[in-house]
């Protein structure tokens, strides 16, 4: 049933403007970040790492949370419109599965975004004249960014399910991204849900994820995601059809 629900979500997103934005949005920080790197090459001496800081500067604190907020609000909007929740909740599927399908879809969109961001990073590096990209490190940033982003996605899906407005959850996501930066500055980024994505991606953050902290990071992300997913599933199951 979950696969069928996932397929239904895929069909709802077909030819959606979300994909166009998904393609275009990461190109801006990649292009302008690379230009900035090239102009300041004498100061930014750590090659790939310096380029990464230029690419992720602002992206992780402001724009990626907003993008995730929009993904989640968009996925839920189709049900908020035209009383579609009534139809969704009367299909022979567990309500928690409906919630999980939406969560998995948003997570896949996040994963694709991360892969696209990393692909643009490597391409930009080659264009900037850098060689030997640190594949393993890039893969780690991408994987940990996705893991940290999953926490944001699980919260945002939960909020978007309960708030009918499209704008409000996106605003909350934006505020969440801001709070993430504050918590990182206070060295508490490893426990605040909205900081985990920047923390995992080592995005020019005041607090950096050390190799030794990976286990703890993964555990916290899994626990948060599980908590918000279970909460969402329970709320969906108890929700009254209006």
């Amino acid at each position, binding site marked *: 049933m979950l696969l069928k629900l996932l397929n239904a979500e895929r069909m709802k997103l077909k030819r959606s403007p979300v994909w*166009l934005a998904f393609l275009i949005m990461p190109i801006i920080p990649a292009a302008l970040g690379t230009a900035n790197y090239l102009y300041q090459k004498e100061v930014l001496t750590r090659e790939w790492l310096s380029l990464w800081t230029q690419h992720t500067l602002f992206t992780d604190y402001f*724009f990626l949370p907003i993008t995730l907020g929009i993904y989640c609000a968009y996925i839920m909007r189709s049900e908020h419109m035209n009383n579609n929740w009534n139809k969704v909740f009367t299909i022979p599927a567990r309500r928690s599965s409906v919630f999980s399908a939406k969560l998995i879809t948003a997570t896949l969109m996040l994963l694709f975004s991360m892969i696209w961001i990393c692909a643009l990073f490597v391409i930009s590096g080659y264009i900037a004249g850098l060689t030997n990209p640190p594949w393993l490190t890039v893969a780690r940033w991408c994987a940990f960014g996705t893991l940290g982003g999953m926490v944001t996605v699980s919260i945002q899906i939960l909020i978007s399910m309960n708030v009918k407005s499209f704008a409000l959850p*996106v605003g909350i996501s934006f505020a969440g991204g801001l709070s993430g930066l504050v918590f990182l500055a206070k060295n508490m980024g490893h426990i605040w849900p909205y900081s985990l994505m920047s923390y995992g991606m080592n995005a020019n953050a005041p607090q950096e994820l050390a190799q030794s902290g990976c286990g703890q990071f993964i555990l916290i992300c899994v626990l948060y995601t599980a908590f918000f997913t279970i909460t969402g599933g329970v709320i969906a199951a108890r929700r009254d059809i209006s």
Partner: protein
Amino acid sequence: MIKLLKCEFMKTRRRYVFVTALVITAAMLAWIYPRHRSADLLRLGWMANLYELPLINSIFMPLLSIIVSSRLCDIEHKGAMLKQLAVTEKRGQIYDAKLLYGLAIMMFCVGLSWGMTIAFGYIAGFEGGPPIRLYLLYLLLTAAPTIAVYIFQHTLSLCFKNQAVTFFTGAIGTFFGTFSMFLPQLPWLRGSLIWGYYGALSFVGLFDWSKDDRYKLAHFDVIGVDWKFFAALIFICAAIYIIGREIFKRKEL
């Protein structure tokens, strides 16, 4: 028009549009001000604000515009109300009333953040008093790009039922505007899109800052306003308004 504005007020009651705008403005202020400032920064505080704030505005003001315009216009899309409204009122007036109502909220937030900037300066203990003429100029040069961005977002929000289009366009523009401020080598970049005008119209520069001494020998100076950009922005504002209004008037509902 007064009736339409009253109508807007009634429609947005208990929808917390104004509260949402205030919360975002408060988040912006909370993000900027409660931080430790060195003695050098306290000495340079008033001018440092004028140097730093355009960057913060380039992130917050467009996002506030997206959220306010979307919240105001989505009310009509959700209940298919535009069709009914267009029967009883002129479409141009509907466009104007919604625009005025949204702009009033935006300008209140711009004014509030401006006032709080000065208040926080006194609270933080910045040396001397604020250069009022420069702060008034800053207010004008913050309000102008905000108005342009808001008119653009308002038109998108009214014309597209799918608010994701509005959000993504706005987010991409904001992204572009913020990043363009990091490339002073390419001044045309800031002037090429409305979101970049927060940077194009910034008029204070930082000089003699060094990694070792930081702000010890640094000073902020007025580098002058590029009034060509300001004139271009006014023209763009008028163009977006006229074209946007016309598109809305001709739109199939």
